[in-house]
């Protein structure tokens, strides 16, 4: 039994494509049968369309990559009109990843998504908070709490809050997001990082900072998922550098109900299927009937 129930949504298996790495599912669906996935998370949506960041947007690092896409997206309205109908035909659950720069934007976006048939909303609190000079909502628990509370009060969909590893105290952050009304948590988003071009003598990215993802971050992400899972009693979705069934099982044993796969999709486009079948093999070999048997066992 691979299916998992998270906040009332039944996923056929615990393998979810992560936000920003899978577009709206169309490109990968022309490569393999994405209906085999537990869910697809949309590219990060914002209320208004965004062009994203200028300059270089990607830089490889040992075992990882930095990205500075900057939430380029068509805006929630065009998403609903153009992308969602096509996405629904992909035959899997749809998680809408949504972020805002003000609490007002969060509320407006959620109200629009409420009226659609997305299965779940993933609240991206790693977005820059204009009120606090651009510091992300997801750094201080008290600020995150406010966003989550406001979001929850108007949200008619299951609400999963996506935590940033740059949070001051990830466990307290998780705790406060629960208090704010989160139905589930997902973590981690990318780590705030940078690179410097020594010949140009300045940061590689126009925005200075970029987000680190990929295998490099896995041991830290796993630790955070382990700590958070022990501290809260709502479902946790783990991610950060997963590239193999072994990695995914580690996150499940750390307490995750499901996992998201991001950067790994770039390494091998159908890697989600490898991970899925690897988990099935492991369960057979180890005589595990239901994935929940090993959840949080470590």
């Amino acid at each position, binding site marked *: 039994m691979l299916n998992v129930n998270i906040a009332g949504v039944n996923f056929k298996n615990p393998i979810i494509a992560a936000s*920003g790495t899978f577009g709206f599912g169309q490109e990968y669906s022309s490569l393999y049968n994405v209906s085999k996935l537990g869910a697809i998370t949309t590219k990060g949506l914002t209320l208004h369309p965004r062009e994203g960041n200028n300059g270089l947007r990607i830089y490889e690092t040992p075992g990882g990559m930095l990205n500075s896409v900057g939430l380029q997206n068509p805006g929630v309205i065009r998403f609903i009109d153009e992308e969602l109908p096509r996405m629904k035909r992909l035959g899997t659950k749809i998680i809408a990843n949504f972020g805002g720069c003000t609490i007002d934007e969060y509320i407006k976006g959620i109200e629009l998504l409420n009226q659609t048939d997305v299965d779940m909303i993933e609240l991206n609190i790693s977005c820059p908070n204009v009120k606090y000079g651009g510091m992300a909502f997801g750094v201080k628990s008290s600020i995150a709490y406010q966003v989550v509370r406001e979001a929850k009060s108007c949200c008619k969909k299951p609400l999963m809050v996506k935590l940033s590893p740059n949070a001051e105290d990830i466990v307290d952050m998780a705790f406060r997001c629960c208090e704010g009304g989160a139905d589930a948590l997902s973590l981690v988003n990318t780590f705030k990082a940078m690179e410097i071009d020594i010949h140009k003598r300045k940061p590689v990215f126009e925005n200075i900072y970029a987000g680190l993802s990929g295998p490099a971050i896995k041991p830290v992400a796993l630790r955070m998922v382990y700590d958070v899972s022990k501290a809260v009693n709502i479902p946790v979705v783990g991610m950060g550098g997963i590239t193999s069934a072994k990695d995914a099982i580690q996150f499940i044993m750390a307490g995750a109900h499901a996992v998201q796969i991001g950067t790994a999709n770039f*390494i091998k486009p159908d890697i989600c299927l490898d991970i899925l079948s690897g988990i099935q093999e492991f369960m057979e070999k180890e005589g595990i009937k239901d994935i929940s048997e090993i959840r949080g066992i470590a």
Partner: protein
Amino acid sequence: MNFQYRVEIVDENMEISKGIYKLSLSGKFKGVPGQFYMLKTYGLNPLLPRPISIHDIHENKISFLYSVVGEGTKFLSQLRKGEQLQILGPLGKGFNVENIKGKAAIISGGIGIAPMLYLSKNLKVSTLHLYAGFRDEVYGIDDMKKYTDKIYLTTENGNTGVKGYITEIFNPSSYDIVLCCGPEKMMMKTVKLCKEYNVPIFVSMEKHMACGIGACLVCTCKTKNGNRRTCKDGPVFLGEDVIWDA
């Protein structure tokens, strides 16, 4: 869409000039000129596949021509016959050979010559001139001779052809259309030149990529029509549409 992810066995991987390799795989491969494949060697280092243009396709073979510039291409160059290579492709929008007519010029800088063999083979133009610039050693030209009517060469040190940059000897005025691939600055210059003479030009852009199929938005090319994905909406763009980074 028509691309595939496959694991292939290297048939040949040869250094044809200093730091320039030609890699070929046996089998049936699809692709139009200007399209590319993402190539990936085994393991997590480097993490991401590398975009490499189709150099040539025969009935039972595909070849790539690449220059070793960093870790990724270094690992590629170490592949030997019989070893595995992961490939994803063909990707992107290539040159629309059906709509390219009349007297055409191809202009390339350095390894920008790579896609031009397959392009010149497939063009249905009345006249085709090749302008190819190199730093010192010249490569990739011989195979193109039978598909081109004239070849102009430059090298920065003057070893072969004219000494200087290829943009210095190129005059677009006598062509109906120009097709260009090379370093960004060289393409920018060529586009400017063509604009002066009002000659249409297509350029093949090189942006750093991750997914290669249009899903991750890291390979943005700014254009007059907004942000475009180099991997999917490109890599071939109309020169006048591109807003240059440099």
